[in-house]
């Protein structure tokens, strides 16, 4: 009996050692920060993703986005910055859940990303970037979405 117990303990220990080695190559934020993807509003999502750190407004990150989007199904967004950014995330308040995309910037690369998002209504979008020194930088912008594409 004692031997059996001892063996099963060994298996558990081996599993515990093996666990952290999976996914060492890269960070999939859907696995590590699962909570952030269920948050409805940006502040909650940002908290779940980046923790309680102070958000510093910045002008060193440039976001190019239309002021008025005629097609809410495809809004082009461009993020550009020369800061040493580790992680940059994009949140919006227009959809049922806030988190949209999180980029982990590989070592030595600069932020220069273009992508397109869906928004159901006029809302604020927020970008939060974590730099290498652990500071959180943020900027936001309101994007008008005209439903029906009348452009008014």
């Amino acid at each position, binding site marked *: 009996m004692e031997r059996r117990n001892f063996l099963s303990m060994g298996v558990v220990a081996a599993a515990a050692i093996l666990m952290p080695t999976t996914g060492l190559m*890269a960070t999939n934020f859907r696995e590590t920060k699962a909570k952030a993807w269920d948050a409805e509003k940006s502040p909650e999502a940002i908290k779940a993703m980046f923790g309680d750190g102070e958000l510093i407004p910045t002008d060193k990150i440039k976001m190019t986005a239309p002021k008025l989007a005629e097609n809410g199904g495809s809004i082009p967004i461009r993020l550009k910055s020369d800061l040493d950014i580790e992680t940059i995330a994009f949140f919006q308040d227009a959809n049922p859940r806030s988190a949209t995309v999180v980029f982990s910037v590989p070592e030595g690369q600069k932020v220069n990303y273009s992508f397109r998002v869906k928004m159901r209504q006029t809302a604020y979008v927020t970008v939060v970037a974590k730099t290498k020194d652990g500071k959180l930088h943020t900027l936001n912008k309101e994007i008008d979405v005209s439903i029906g594409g009348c452009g008014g």
Partner: protein
Amino acid sequence: MAKDMKIKAKEKNGVVNVKVMFTSLMADAEEAEKKKIKPEFITYIVGKSNDKVVFEATTSGFMSENPLMKFSFTGAKKGDELEFTITDNHGKTETGSKKIK
């Protein structure tokens, strides 16, 4: 699941400019219900060149359909292979690669 991905990569003065389009409906739970389809969206994209990660993004269903990404990176030259791997919400993965021009 995505059928193919289109990759365009061009090197100029040491900077590689990449345009990549993935095929996916990008339908989150609510949208899928409306259209009466199963939710399907890409959750994770990773791009590698010379065994180094050059692009990494975790996405949700609120990206537009057939997401188009543009980005640039340094540290690769003409003729190098650029490889993308995407994972969708069902855990399926797909890989595509292209040589940098």
